């Protein structure tokens, strides 16, 4: 393939990507040689599935230990700004990006002829598995993808077994009173475990901010929180330390699963499920 032809092929792919998020025929076989990611969640998928030589750069949050599951591994790879400039300079074969946010950056890259693979925010375990399969094809390692998916399935089975003994209503509560809706990955994890996301009772099926009062009044059995550190580094965190919550929900009534395990779907999912299993078993006792 001449350089010109190759470029045309990439343009074609980019055009196709615009119209459809489906797997592209060209992605599967060869496995792109040089891949960059500008989204924290695709960073994780990429690190889990690609060979290190294939990765030319990761997004700005990849090394953040609070958010990024594979923060340590990410240190091996160049860190990108998340904006178009350094990506353009690198000229990777594919750029992984989120479907939401950074719209201007994505448009710019596209007009410059750089191929984009966009990933939705996964709303269920199945979504995550589909993304893993898709990226496995893209990097040319479908075997790794199916192995990871198998690990997810096994973890989900363990959770299901544990959950058979206890069922209850869980409210996933984050900073500033943000409640993840029923149509979210966290909800999918909960339902795998046979637990009910109480968000719907609060009228927040799509997720949203709940006031302290409605949380207290809904009286969920458990709160699902991302950490248990008793300092309020900002006002959003301060809400979680409000006495109304602290008193009604002592540590024994909280499920704590670190943010980096639930913020994305991907290689962290088995561990997230195992944490959930362990938490349920503890409550059971």
């Amino acid at each position, binding site marked *: 393939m001449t350089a010109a032809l190759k470029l045309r092929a990439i343009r074609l792919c980019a055009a196709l990507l615009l119209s459809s998020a489906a797997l592209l025929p060209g992605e599967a076989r060869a496995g792109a040689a040089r891949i960059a990611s500008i989204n924290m969640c695709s960073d994780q998928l990429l690190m889990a599935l690609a060979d290190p030589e294939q990765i030319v750069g990761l997004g700005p949050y990849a090394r953040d230990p609070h958010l990024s599951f594979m923060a340590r591994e990410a240190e091996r790879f160049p860190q990108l700004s998340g904006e178009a400039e350094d990506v353009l300079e690198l000229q990777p074969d594919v750029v992984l990006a989120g479907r939401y946010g950074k719209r201007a950056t994505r448009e710019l890259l596209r007009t410059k002829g750089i191929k984009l693979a966009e990933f939705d925010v996964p709303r269920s375990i199945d979504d995550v598995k589909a993304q893993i399969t898709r990226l496995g094809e893209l990097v040319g390692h479908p075997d790794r993808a199916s192995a990871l998916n198998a690990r997810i399935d096994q973890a989900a089975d363990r959770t299901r077994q544990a959950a058979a003994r206890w069922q209850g209503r869980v409210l996933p509560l984050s900073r500033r009173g943000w409640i993840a809706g029923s149509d979210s990955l966290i909800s999918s994890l909960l339902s795998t475990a046979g637990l009910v996301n109480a968000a719907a009772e609060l009228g927040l099926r799509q997720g949203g901010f709940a*006031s302290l009062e409605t949380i*207290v009044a809904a009286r969920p059995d458990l709160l699902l929180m991302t950490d248990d550190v008793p300092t309020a580094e*900002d006002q959003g965190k301060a809400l979680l330390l*409000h006495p*109304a919550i602290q008193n009604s929900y002592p540590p024994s009534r909280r499920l704590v699963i670190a943010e980096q395990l639930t913020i994305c779907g991907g290689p962290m999912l088995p561990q997230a499920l195992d944490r959930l299993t362990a938490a349920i078993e503890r409550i059971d006792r």
Partner: protein
Amino acid sequence: MRAADRTLLAALLVGGVVLLFLVSLSIGPVRLSLGTVIEALVGGGTDVQRTIVQEIRLPRAILAVTIGAMHGLAGAALQGLLRNPLAAPSLFGAPQAAAFGAVLVIAIGVADTLSYALPLAAIAMAFVSVFVLLAVAGRNANLLLLILAGLALSSLAGAATSLALNLAPNPFASLEISFWLLGSLEDRSFHHVTLALPFMAVGAALLMMRGEAFRVLSLGEEAAQSLGVDVGHLRLQVILGVALGVGAAVAVSGTIGFIGLIVPHLMRPLVGYDPGRLLLPSALAGGALLLAADVAVRLIPSTTGIKVGVLTALIGVPFFLYLVVRQRRSLTGSLA
């Protein structure tokens, strides 16, 4: 205005505050009747009702009334000191500077948002800003100069607040910025009350006790001084009182502006324009105004909570412009 009228005014204001306080306790996302609220307040009702009323709504209402009172009082005191109805802490950048102080200690990791370091830093920055402002404007404070310097200081403090939040390793900076710059009383707890109230009480006391001096100051600084008022000391006391009160208020509620501008102006005709009698009614009316604003933000339907500072600014800025138009002649005159 006779003493009986003044007592009536104070009684009406107290009545209004009590009424709004009860309304504030009865309003929230969870529907509770006034009867239930009162029952829960005195220890009856279900666990959930008690939690909602005693731990969520009560501290919020207490903060609204005390912070509003503090802003109203600070405005009345500054207007008394500077002998001008356009003076107010928020126009002089004091709350913005206080917010910067609070954000700074969080950003450099000295303290979290529930520590006493927060009000202390806010108070220190508020003190610096008011002190600098009055120093820049000079002894015979020309109002135009004050407002320009105040604008500069509040812009600087607002920018510094945003910068500090952006530089801090917090991915939620933009939400935090909006809290500090627009203010909110949502979901505060008694922890916040104990954090702010002692400082506000001292600040309020410092301002309250100088009513007579403000009255004498109506004659100008020189005449007041010749009548035995230590104007230098008075200035310092007012700066300290405003810094303590406003700084502590901002540390728990963020920047809530314009109450200190609106309230003294509304109360002034009712007390016969006497700056010495303006302090208590301004404090009461300030408490009532912030209670009412905080009730209103809960009643206006919206997807995410409206910040109470947005509402006070929406009312306050047009009011400020109206005052400027009324003062236009004296403002342009003071240029000469």
